[in-house]
């Protein structure tokens, strides 16, 4: 029993990280109907910003806000430079644009920094644990779970109780009508990207605390996991993104723990098979979003 509870705790920690990224992916999808494959680049850019700050001797008290601010600014910049020009284009064109941003950022770091990864010190407490009732809780997992809950609550509050949030929801519902009613599209989309950047920044903080590593592809895997989590939960549904992330983390941990040695290298493959099976029964994810429910 303890073993299973331990695995659930570990799974929630891992899933929380995915959920934070999925929240940002879901938010952008809600506004632009685009799966933003460049979302991971917010982590990549933040990672290099952390490395740069660490070189100056900055501590994590500086790195944390530095990472979040970098992610927000990068997100807004990416929208301004790349996505605003294809707002009216097809979904496929926007998808390709997001891939383009991903490759350009990656290549830029390879060319102008290095293909080799750069490292910076992780917080000393990063692997600290507290044991309660035989269950070990990693400090970082507790932080991730708390951050995920707070991020979800904050995002929902922003969307439901602020003017910008209402504008985002209106734009998500019907962009053209919202504009006719006076919603300023540029501002709304910029706000959505800033919010997505904030969420990516929070995810990046935990990811970088754990890895202490900046690499041209640092954001690739987190982005893929985040997109997958958003798809599982139901694209465009924020609660779905969180559920998808937590579920993905739990399934991964359980597979790693439970699979026999002979097939334990197939965790990712099995995850995708399970996701495929899920889509057979729930083609739009666990929390299917009706048109009036987004984001």
């Amino acid at each position, binding site marked *: 029993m303890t073993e299973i509870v331990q695995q659930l705790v570990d799974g929630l920690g891992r899933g929380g990280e995915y959920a934070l990224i999925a929240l940002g992916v879901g938010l952008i999808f809600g506004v632009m109907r685009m799966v933003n494959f460049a979302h991971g680049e917010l982590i990549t850019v933040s990672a290099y910003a952390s490395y740069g700050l660490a070189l100056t001797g900055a501590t994590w008290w500086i790195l944390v806000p530095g990472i979040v601010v970098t992610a927000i600014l990068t997100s807004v910049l990416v929208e301004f430079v790349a996505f605003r020009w294809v707002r009216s284009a097809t979904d496929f064109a926007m998808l390709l644009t997001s891939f383009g941003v991903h490759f350009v950022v990656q290549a830029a770091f390879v060319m102008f920094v290095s293909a080799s990864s750069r490292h910076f010190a992780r917080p000393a407490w990063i692997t600290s644990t507290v044991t309660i009732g035989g269950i070990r809780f990693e400090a970082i997992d507790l932080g991730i779970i708390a951050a995920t809950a707070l991020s979800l609550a904050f995002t929902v509050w922003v969307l439901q109780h602020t003017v910008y949030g209402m504008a985002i929801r209106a734009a998500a519902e019907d962009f053209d009508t919202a504009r006719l009613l006076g919603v300023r599209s540029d501002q709304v989309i910029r706000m959505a990207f800033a919010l997505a950047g904030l969420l990516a920044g929070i995810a990046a903080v935990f990811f970088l605390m754990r890895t202490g590593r900046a690499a041209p592809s640092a954001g690739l895997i987190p982005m893929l996991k985040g997109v997958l989590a958003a798809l599982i939960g139901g694209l465009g549904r924020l609660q779905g993104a969180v559920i998808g992330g937590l579920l993905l983390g739990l399934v991964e941990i359980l597979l790693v723990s439970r699979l026999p040695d002979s097939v*334990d*290298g197939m965790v990712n493959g099995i995850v995708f098979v399970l996701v495929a099976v899920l889509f057979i029964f729930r083609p739009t994810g666990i929390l299917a979003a009706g048109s009036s429910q987004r984001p």
Partner: protein
Amino acid sequence: MLNKRLLAIVLSLCLIAAACGNDDDGTAAVTAPAPTAASTSSSTEDAPQQAEPDDGEPEPGEAEPDEAEPDEAEPGEAGPAPASSASLDVDAVLAADLSACGPAPTGEALKIGYAADFSELGGFVDIPGSSAAAYFAELVNCVGGIDGRPLELVVRDIEGDPETAGRVAQELLDDGVTAILGPAFFDVNQAILQVTAGHTPLISVSSTEPLLADPAQLSLLASFTDTAQAKAAAQFAVDQGWQTAATFSVPGPYFGYVVEVFTEEYEALGGEVLGDYPFVPAETTDFSAQVNEIAALDPQPDVIYSALLAFQAAILGGQLDEAGIDAEMLVADAFTATGGYFIDGVEGFFHTSHTFPAPDGRMVRFLNSYEQAKGTALESDSYAALAADAILVIAQAVIDTGSLDPVTVGEAMIAGTGVDGLTGVLAYNGGGTPNTPVYVHQVVDGGPSLAAVYEVFE
């Protein structure tokens, strides 16, 4: 709906591509050869060179030398005389002053191609490797070239793509190269071999994949193989008295193969592998599930062996410590390749490596020379030295045969019995691997400390 299906497909392809990209050869279907061809020379009566792991910054020479083996000298120092009567004086090359070179060589140029991977996948090897190779060529030309022939290095980017690698190989052949320096990963080297078709030698600068060492195709490695480093690691673990081990692997070459060989060798030597745990290279950043399983083992492992990337090893080490698991960490050469000495939380870790950076050794002299000349340091020490060694192997074959014919040179490379290089003496003896020693380092005070040296002949 269609859009979501499209996304699911794209996402699946991306994740699969990302996972494949982390494999050493990117081809999970490749079957590694049985490691029976190799035999370690580190048996009881034929003991490996070995120093105390925690004795600070030892002189490599203080290790007990293996009497039967050719590396009695310090790593990177002159070894036994090569078979050929004439050879390039490596020390003279390394001492060359580019601002005061002798007369330029005037003979027919020796053209060497470098099919370099500058992509994010292989750039960590070939960006510093190609810079080192180009600089080494400058030094060689500065001291009169190779038997009066200027050395011309033609570097082309394969972009991490097998199709491009094949095209680049053809371009290099069209340029008239005598030999090609190959990139790190198996699949791109295979694409090059399909073009060279055994008519032009290919020597991979950094690959440790045993399948690439194929004399029939004139395909060689500049470094030891995964078989050798895994066997050396197993021997080292047993020599330390570590009786139980746990391993981390992922099926396939390198990340899986080294663990496979380690397990076989370690258990043959009397050790017991208690369990093997999965991870995904460059992806897994949380080992809590695996650590919890290890914590439940009885007995506990004395050592954890894997080919984890350095940052992953650091994370795993921290989580093991926190779970109260007192096991040593022993990692393959991916540790240094991925910046092991720039990471916190790896103090005391052991890892296999291609050479030891002795302060007065050739590798360090080469790196210092480069930094002085170029004003910037090379990012990799081992790969820089291996690139220079690959050139030396080709150069020696040209000196031995007096020919620039690719087949003649390739056959001479394979027949080479001792090229005095930066990482040691490269002796192919008719095979495709150089039989250079495997060094085991320990991270002490954030730097490498030589723990042992093993000869593993294949």
